[in-house]
């Protein structure tokens, strides 16, 4: 076995893992504060991807800069979805939330298909073809930028949650909703905010997906989102480090499986890992906490 190839697979895995980490972190945040399961989270990734491609198409500015715009756009869309769909059914049970997500998946996917068509599309990165030598490997510059951007976003989120007043209020709501209400925190505002930020993280993932040259269509989001749920089950509900480790693990496992067994196994391997883990530990690797 060639060490170079193994390293290459590892590197692809880390790059793919960045997308999962952003999705899983957003889901963790939403689950922590609202305790809801939104299986339609991947649709926000998809919208982020299309927003990025559309803005790029009309303005031609560096697509990496569009990440800010797509995140802001998705905060707004997320807030609307939370207000109209999830708030009315808050507390009616996880199954109801899942069923509602199915409705959302249909609406958002096909809404996107009406606006942008249902063909596979792709965008060319301005840094396409530029590689950076790292040891024996030639790593595309895009991959390195994506890793740095992901790390930057996570650091920003960490600082926001730990150091700002709103971040502290958000964590308080996620630890004890009633207690947070008692000390005067507007928990409904925290709901809408956490949902919006979660969507913005998905949008960032969507932008990174597009600028790295991967193809996208309106139906691309569902499976990554459900994998992101698998990641937070493995990594522990509400745990940021867990989401990072789980995301990287999934990215690497998938790319390894695709390399060694063929691309068709890419999706299946994630769920095989999930099922094996749940057979051994029905509450997830770091279970107990959460609903």
């Amino acid at each position, binding site marked *: 076995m060639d060490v170079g190839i193994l390293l290459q697979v590892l590197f692809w895995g880390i790059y793919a893992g960045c997308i999962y980490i952003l999705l899983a972190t957003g889901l963790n945040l939403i689950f922590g504060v609202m305790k809801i399961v939104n299986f339609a989270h991947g649709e926000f990734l998809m919208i982020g991807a299309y927003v990025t491609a559309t803005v790029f198409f009309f303005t031609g500015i560096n697509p990496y800069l569009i990440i800010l715009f797509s995140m802001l756009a998705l905060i707004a869309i997320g807030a609307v979805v939370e207000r109209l769909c999830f708030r009315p059914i808050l507390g009616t049970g996880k199954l109801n939330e899942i069923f509602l997500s199915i*409705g959302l998946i249909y*609406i958002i996917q096909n809404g996107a*298909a009406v606006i942008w068509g249902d063909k596979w599309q792709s965008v060319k990165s301005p840094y396409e073809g530029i590689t950076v030598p790292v040891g024996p490997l030639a790593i595309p510059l895009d991959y390195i930028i994506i890793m740095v951007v992901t790390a930057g976003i996570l650091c920003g989120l960490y600082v926001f949650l730990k150091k700002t007043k709103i971040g502290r209020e958000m964590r308080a709501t996620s630890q004890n909703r009633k207690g947070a209400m008692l000390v005067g925190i507007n928990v409904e505002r925290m709901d809408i905010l956490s949902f919006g930020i979660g969507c913005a993280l998905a949008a960032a993932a969507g932008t990174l997906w597009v600028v790295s040259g991967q193809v996208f269509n309106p139906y691309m989001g569902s499976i990554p989102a*459900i994998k992101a749920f698998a990641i937070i*089950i493995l990594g522990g509900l509400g745990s940021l480090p867990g989401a990072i480790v789980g995301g990287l693990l999934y990215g690497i496992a998938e790319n390894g499986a695709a390399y060694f067994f063929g691309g068709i196994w890419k999706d299946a391997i994630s769920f095989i890992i999930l099922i094996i883990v749940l057979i051994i530990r029905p509450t997830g690797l770091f279970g107990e906490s959460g609903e």
Partner: protein
Amino acid sequence: MNLKGDGWARMSIFGVIAVAMVAPFLSGNLYLLNILTLMLIFIIFASAWNLLAYSGQGSLGHAAFFGIGAYASTLIAAKSGLSPYFTIFLGAAVAAFIGILIGLTCVRLKEWFLAMVTFGFAIIVQTITVSLITPITGGWDGIASPRLLSPEIPGYQLLEYYSILIITIASILIIYSIMKSKIGLALSAIRENELEARAAGIDPVKFRLLAFALSAYIAGIAGALEIHHIGYITPEIFGVDLSFWPVIYVIFGGLGTLAGPVIGTIVLTIIWEGLKLLGLTFGRYIIIGVLLIIVIIFLPKGLVDLPYEIRKRLERKSH
């Protein structure tokens, strides 16, 4: 389930059956007959999903059992030359066996973990179908499936329709008797409060597995019927759409009720085909999604609850 609560709805099943008996004569249109046949098959499928949900287990991967029943029945019928009317029950047994296996992983899980495992399971089955066992499944291209009845028989579509109608009625009757029996009581006890059920001497694992096996068996029959009706099977059968449809039908009609899947499937099929006539493609899905969310928020017990909901509102106004 509230068997009393949907009294009118259960009565309406008889009305539906009566209409279903004469429907083909009213139109005589083969295109419509095909839609009606598929609708019956989906009533069976939705009822199967509903039976599992009745035990508190919401599956997002029922296409797996639908498809396994279909593939197994196709392969058995093709290899043995037996009539599909016989092999659908064998194919469904394979689905039930796999259902027990996946049920074993699921019985101890939280409800939304279960949703993910079943969703993933359908993807795993599809992957295996197009990779490891391609020689017998034909990979992505699929394989031909023996028809229920030979097209040489005059009026075979009509005969097929009535045979499927009989199987549909039988399935609903069986599900009804399960729900009314002690098994049904145990299942709803587990769904409502597992701890109390346990205290009453009910073994949740045993009954959950039973629900999985029964639901997978009936879903397998539905899948086999569809494929023998169409005459061709591809791995698309394991797709997300086919996992979501029974969920949508049941939520729309009324979760955990006998009539819910029947009413939901009929109403949504009419809406779906109506929108198709209007020339909507993506728009159909959007409208179905919006309707689903409206029902979940404003009519949480589904369409079977509509008359009661209206009466409640009217009474509130008159006071």
